[in-house]
């Protein structure tokens, strides 16, 4: 065996080694320092160190006083819940105080972080770094039972709650081209971050944080500043969403990570009044509650903490029991969003699970900071754990009905109906179905121009409809599925979600259009009603033919996958400005509004111009963006010719931009607001029932059978059936 | 008398272990293949024996390959093209004709070249062609649950089985011939002895006896 001796390097080798090391160092510096700077200037977004007024240092005495107060409050609350109420108030008070000062009660009730902070000498909450002081890593239990230690910050930065998008597979969304989103080799980041949508009227880059000067009538001309924007509900505290995460390389800068609002989810005493827009020399961003009070009351995640943001998209801001909507801000109060996105609240008043103390995370069982939204998803919202189920059956089994005499028959319905179909009877009346962003209305109380909700309803057949659903959805949120009989007549994209037939709805739209005409004389009421209720009328005959062909060729197979059941779906459509250069059979690229100018002036074209002047929208209309994601995006969108980089703003004028309704209504899943008692048989099984069996793809004979009320009459005749209930 | 140290310790150890395993494998393999024929081993006994022996043969084969890579034993398997056919032919002529005429061996092993061309070729074929196929198909049997359902349109286990069986027949044949050929040395047992002691002895070579130590 030969031994290889280490020889001193020759001068050339030495030189080569030094050059290599220098190049590597250079590349690292470029990646870490120059790339972020270049990226920031390319997309026109800012990152800077963040400070918050509520993050103040307390002296030891102040800390102890606060600890005392929080401990007393917690014990007071818990004791009051235990001591019976049916007694002399004074006697009760004495008992509560006795209980509060019991040694074991103090030990078990005092917010745990008081002790931790005291021992660690923490007298100021400084954001994530304070949390990471102890929680640098967390144990995550995965669905298959494996336990892993993960880096806490990395876990949250890569969660959908932070990124609002995902560029991995696992989407149950299919493009109108028939391809499952991100199932192929070319994966693009998709999710809320880049999904323009007609409900908020803008998207995260152009609508992250806005300060709006309102002029409420009762203020007699005085200007009140209001806060608005997507960032109010999102945990990043910086000047923009996590745009950096959309690139295959690079990371969110550490300043931005320091802006993560841990406490909005983890604290029980978080003050939502701190959640408003603030302006500093770098721009606008959302404030947070970083007080020691909030930090000391960190506790287990509960429905209350989730609902600070999520009641907004369930019950809505105008929902009576939306707690967060009562704390709109100490200053710059948040603008309430009227017209609910779903109108199905999760609260003890309107949901049987909430009433029985079930917490959000009981069904949406998290794995670390990744939270599942279930395998079925009709919209293009990213899912942290797309393989994890969130279902009724996981608790209720396949035979959930035990009360009724007809329990077997009720259970029998589960093969075809989702639980929600019977157990969500109505949505909130605030549920918005048609929203006109192009013709805003002046709200004199708020002193703002607001988008006009042409139609709101929570009634079945109006605010929501019933569709077959196998868990798949289209790129523009249309539920996909098919009648298990293999029907080829079920075609919601040409029927249920593409037109409004209900005469009451049409009349309501007409009356609203007539009302709008007062303000906007150019409105032709008949044309307006037709566009809103028959959005397909906006398509040319060629486009219409192409649409039908795409449905048959690309979507039929996706509709027939798996097992479909009938689910309720909230309906929604919006009139917005569209970039007609990028129009397809299902809609065109909608253009965002700039919130401040929209709310203040109601000059909608001006507001669009301002929004699309945003650097990132300009980038969107350039070649790199086209190649990186927009062509793929358009293909999913049903536009086969690729993304046209014809920037719609030329010399301050909008070019080839028209106001339109999307060519069909979006359908949003509703899964909360569950009622213990379901529908009566007759609500569906009658000739004028809430379900249109014919449109659901049943044969005429089967429709007659399903609408036959004799069988229900028979059920009622049973004398003992009422007693058995 | 001339003596050459041809077979180092590891080669001999490997050879005899391999020989033993071959016999065990042939016996246990046949016992399974011809199960129920009323002779040979019990199926239940033959199976674990065959599996264990097969695994050991695999380890041995890997050891052999590595051994040939790291020691200079490997050079004996390097085919020298110069005069190849002439050497091959003279060796064949010897076995087919000369041996009956009591002609002298055409080939004299040396430290540089211990195998005659015919030997070299057959060992190459056996060790680097048949053995890998046999070992791979054997392991495919062991993990047949992970095989795809079909291979080339046939049941994959069937393909594996037929491959294994065919190669096994070839190797059994090789063993027979090999056993016979070792008797064709200077004396009936001189080749056998060489593989036991490591020393190859020839009576009338002019060079001095020399010994080599392996490094």
């Amino acid at each position, binding site marked *: 065996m030969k031994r290889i001796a280490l020889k001193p390097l020759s001068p050339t080798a030495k030189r080569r080694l030094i050059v290599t090391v220098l190049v590597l160092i250079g590349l690292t510096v470029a990646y870490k320092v120059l790339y972020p700077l270049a990226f920031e200037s390319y997309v026109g977004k800012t990152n800077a160190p963040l400070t918050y007024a509520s993050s103040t240092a307390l002296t030891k005495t102040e800390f102890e006083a606060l600890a005392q107060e929080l401990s007393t409050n917690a014990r007071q609350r818990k004791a009051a819940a235990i001591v019976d109420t049916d007694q002399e108030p004074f006697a009760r008070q004495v008992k509560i105080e006795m209980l509060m000062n019991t040694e074991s009660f103090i030990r078990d009730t005092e917010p745990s972080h008081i002790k931790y902070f005291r021992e660690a000498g923490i007298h100021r909450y400084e954001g994530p770094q304070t949390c990471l002081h102890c929680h640098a890593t967390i144990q995550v239990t995965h669905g298959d039972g494996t336990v892993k230690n993960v880096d806490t910050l990395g876990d949250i930065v890569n969660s959908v709650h932070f990124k609002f998008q995902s560029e991995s597979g696992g989407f149950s969304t299919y493009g109108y081209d028939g391809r499952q989103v991100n199932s192929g080799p070319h994966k693009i980041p998709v999710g809320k971050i880049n999904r323009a949508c007609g409900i908020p009227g803008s998207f995260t880059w152009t609508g992250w944080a806005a300060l709006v000067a309102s002029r409420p009538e009762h203020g007699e001309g005085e200007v009140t500043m209001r806060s608005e924007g997507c960032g109010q509900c999102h945990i990043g505290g910086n000047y923009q969403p996590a745009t950096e995460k959309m690139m295959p390389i690079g990371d969110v800068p550490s300043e931005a990570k320091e802006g993560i609002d841990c406490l909005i989810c983890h604290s029980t005493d978080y003050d939502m009044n701190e959640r408003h827009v603030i302006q500093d020399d770098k721009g606008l961003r959302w404030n947070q509650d970083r007080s020691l009070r909030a930090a000391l009351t960190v506790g287990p995640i509960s429905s209350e903490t989730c609902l600070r943001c999520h009641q907004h998209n369930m019950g809505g801001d105008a929902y009576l029991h939306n707690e967060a909507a009562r704390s709109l801000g100490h200053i710059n109060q948040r603008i309430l969003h009227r017209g609910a996105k779903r109108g199905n609240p999760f609260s003890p008043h309107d949901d049987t699970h909430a009433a029985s103390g079930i917490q959000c995370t009981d069904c949406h069982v998290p794995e670390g900071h990744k939270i599942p939204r279930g395998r079925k998803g009709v919209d293009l919202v990213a899912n942290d754990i797309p393989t994890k189920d969130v279902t009724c059956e996981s608790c209720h*089994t*396949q*035979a959930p*009905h*035990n009360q009724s*005499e*007809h*329990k*077997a*028959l009720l*259970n*029998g*319905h*589960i*093969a*075809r109906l989702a639980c929600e179909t019977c157990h969500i009877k109505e949505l909130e009346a605030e549920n918005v179905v048609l929203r006109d962003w192009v013709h805003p209305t002046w709200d004199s109380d708020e002193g703002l121009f607001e988008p006009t909700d042409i139609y709101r309803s929570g009634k079945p057949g109006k605010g929501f409809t019933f569709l077959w659903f196998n868990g798949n959805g289209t790129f523009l949120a249309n539920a996909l599925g098919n009648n298990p009989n293999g029907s080829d007549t079920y075609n919601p994209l040409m029927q249920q979600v593409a037109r409004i037939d209900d005469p009451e709805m049409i009349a309501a739209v007409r009356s609203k259009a007539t009302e709008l005409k007062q303000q906007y004389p150019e409105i032709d009421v008949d044309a307006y009603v037709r566009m809103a209720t028959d959005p397909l009328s906006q398509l040319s005959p060629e486009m219409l033919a192409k649409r039908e062909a795409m449905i048959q060729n690309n979507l039929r197979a996706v509709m027939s996958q798996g097992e479909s059941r009938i689910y309720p779906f909230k309906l929604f459509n919006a009139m917005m400005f569209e970039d007609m250069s990028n129009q397809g059979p299902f809609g065109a690229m909608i253009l965002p509004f700039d919130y401040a100018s929209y709310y203040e002036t109601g000059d909608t074209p001006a507001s669009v111009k301002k929004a699309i002047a945003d650097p990132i929208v300009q980038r969107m209309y350039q070649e790199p963006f086209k190649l990186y994601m927009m062509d793929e995006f358009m293909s999913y969108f049903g536009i086969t010719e690729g993304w046209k980089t014809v920037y719609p703003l030329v010399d301050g004028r909008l070019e080839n931009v028209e106001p339109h309704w999307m060519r069909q209504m979006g359908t949003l899943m509703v899964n909360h607001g569950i009622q213990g008692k379901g529908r009566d048989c007759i609500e569906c099984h009658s000739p004028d029932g809430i379900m249109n069996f014919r449109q659901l793809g049943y044969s005429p004979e089967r429709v007659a*059978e399903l609408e036959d009320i004799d*069988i229900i009459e*028979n*059920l009622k005749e*049973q004398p003992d*059936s009422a007693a058995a209930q | 008398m001339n003596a050459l140290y041809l077979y180092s310790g590891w080669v001999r150890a490997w050879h005899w272990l391999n020989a033993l395993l071959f016999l065990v494998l042939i016996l246990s393999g046949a016992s*399974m*293949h*011809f*199960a*129920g*024929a009323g002779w040979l081993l019990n*199926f*239940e006994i033959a*199976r*674990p024996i065959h599996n264990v022996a097969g695994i050991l043969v695999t380890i041995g084969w890997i050891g052999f390959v590595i051994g040939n890579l790291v020691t200079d034993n490997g050079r004996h398997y390097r085919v020298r093209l110069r005069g190849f056919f002439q050497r091959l032919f003279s060796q064949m002529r010897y*076995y087919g004709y000369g*041996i*009956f*005429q*009591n002609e002298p061996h055409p080939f004299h092993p040396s430290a540089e070249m211990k195998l005659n061309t015919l030997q070299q070729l057959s060992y190459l074929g056996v060790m680097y062609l048949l053995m890998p196929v046999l070992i791979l198909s054997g392991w495919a049997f062991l993990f*047949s*649950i992970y095989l795809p*359902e*079909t291979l080339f349109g*046939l*049941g994959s*286990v*069937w393909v*594996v*089985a*037929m491959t294994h*069986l*065919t190669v096994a*027949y070839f190797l*059994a*044949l090789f063993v*027979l*011939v090999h056993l*016979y050929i070792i*008797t*064709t040395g200077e004396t009936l047992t001189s080749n056998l002895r060489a593989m036991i002691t490591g020393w190859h002895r020839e009576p009338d070579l002019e060079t001095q006896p020399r010994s080599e130590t392996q490094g």
Partner: protein
Amino acid sequence: MTNLALSGALLLTLIAVATPAASGSPATENKSCLRCHAMATLAYRDPGTGDIVDLAVNPHALSHSVHGEIDCIDCHEGDFGRYPHPADAANETLSCVGCHEKDDTKDDTKDDTKDNIARFKSIDAEYAESVHATSDSAEAEGFSCHSCHDPHGFRASQVGEEIAAIVRDDNQVCLSCHEKVRDPLSDPHAWLPNREKHWNAVRCLDCHTPLSDNGKTVSHQVLKAEDSNRDCVNCHSRESSLLNRLYQYRSEEDLATKGWLNKAVFNDAYVVGMSRNATLDLLGLIVTGLTLLVLAAHGFGRYKAYQRTKGKPE
């Protein structure tokens, strides 16, 4: 050869019987029953036991089952005419024997499946010996034909069906109760070499019933674990009992097309010891024999040459 002829005859009968069932719709009488009972999730949770009682009947399985041609009310004679059914209707006794009678009058007891109606005579006798009947375990209580044979879906395996599918479907019946068998921690099959392969390739019954004669269906005498067949050679040999049990379902057609390659490539299966390729074996033995002969002759020649040198003076 008899085996082939027999299965051929069986095939013909089956085709004759199966055709009307496959083409005809389920009896019209069934429609009103199936209006509810076709709901796949028609079930309730028994308040007594907490178990889910399944009331669903798969109309497709029913119409393709051995009972596909008969009406619901032929068996269910209770007062099911209206919904809700009267409470006592649940206690009905099923009238199986009306069809599956023990035909003592004729001397055709050798063939239980005459007229394609399983008569219970020999089945009864076999079942009486079965571990399902003799066990005094609490789990075996209430065991009946229906525990294995779903009357709404049962159909006998047929010649030409894919063997793997037969194995899967048959074993599913056993596994629906014996789920612990597949528990890796308490598996009584740990001794079985290549366990997974066996599970996918043979039916539980192939080992857990007594060996039966050629052409007969597998016995209903399911054996206790300790009495079950553990002798590998029963299958792993040329006279494999699998040939007239599981592989009786292999189709003539398959045999005909694949026979030239290997008579034992039944549905592409290979069974060690059973699937012997006669040609290959013969070829192997002939070549081996020839080699031995050549070597012997060579040796003899050398011996002669050796003798010549001895005879020659040096």
